[in-house]
């Protein structure tokens, strides 16, 4: 009967890992929100995205969560007018990363909620475990 609790721990820890990977990518995006290219010919930083997916363990009959893919957002870059910039083109426009800090912060908040919910699962599994152990006490 303890086994499902152990499984619960493992599934929740896979969730913690996935959400922390998401936070890592979001922080990468935020940190590079203003990273322009070195010259007009090359592209600036492109926003990264994370996709989660199932990792089915047939022997245990459990569906863990994992990072399926870290991709890039192919939406167009923002153009700002900054003629003094070394990366400016002939019209004085500079290509800036396609990162929207507000969107990233919303994503960060969501990852935070997911992380907390997984922590709550671990807490609860621990409580159930100790309730079971308490049965041994007279």
């Amino acid at each position: 009967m303890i086994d499902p609790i152990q499984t619960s721990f493992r599934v929740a820890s896979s969730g913690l890992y996935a959400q922390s990977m998401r936070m890592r990518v979001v922080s990468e995006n935020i940190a590079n929100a203003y990273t322009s290219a070195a010259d007009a010919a090359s592209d600036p930083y492109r926003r990264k995205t994370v996709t989660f997916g199932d990792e089915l363990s047939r022997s245990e009959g459990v569906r863990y969560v994992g990072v399926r893919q870290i991709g890039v957002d192919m939406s167009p870059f923002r153009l700002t007018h900054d003629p003094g910039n070394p990366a400016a083109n002939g019209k004085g426009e500079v290509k800036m990363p396609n990162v929207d800090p507000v969107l990233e912060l919303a994503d960060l908040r969501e990852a935070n909620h997911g992380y907390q919910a997984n922590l709550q699962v671990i807490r609860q599994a621990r409580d159930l475990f100790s309730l079971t152990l308490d049965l041994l006490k007279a």
Partner: protein
Amino acid sequence: MVESAILQLTHRHAQWLMARQKVLSENIAHASSPGYRAIDVEPFEKLVAAGGLDLRATSPRHLRIAQDGTRAIGTRVQRAFETSHSGNTVSLDQQLVTANEVKQAYMLNSSIVKSLNRLLSSAIKG
């Protein structure tokens, strides 16, 4: 004996609660997976009505049978509470509320087993 019947029922209930805890943790871990549909275990009433021992298999591959010979607890896709843009139907709030229900029920269950133990030991000791 009434005591053994109660013990059997609490044992089955605890198994069901554990299966539910496992399913809940899967749902919560998949709260951001695209296309994931939240699942839940079958109701306990249904499990009790099935008697738990009615399914027999001649090969372990025929039917899902738990290790102790009782019927394995089935799962089903939950009615979608809310569906996100990615097709995910996990609602974290709802899952956490259900998790709390599981904990309360498990506390009740273990208290019943404890009091039954007390009852039996006082009967033995006199």
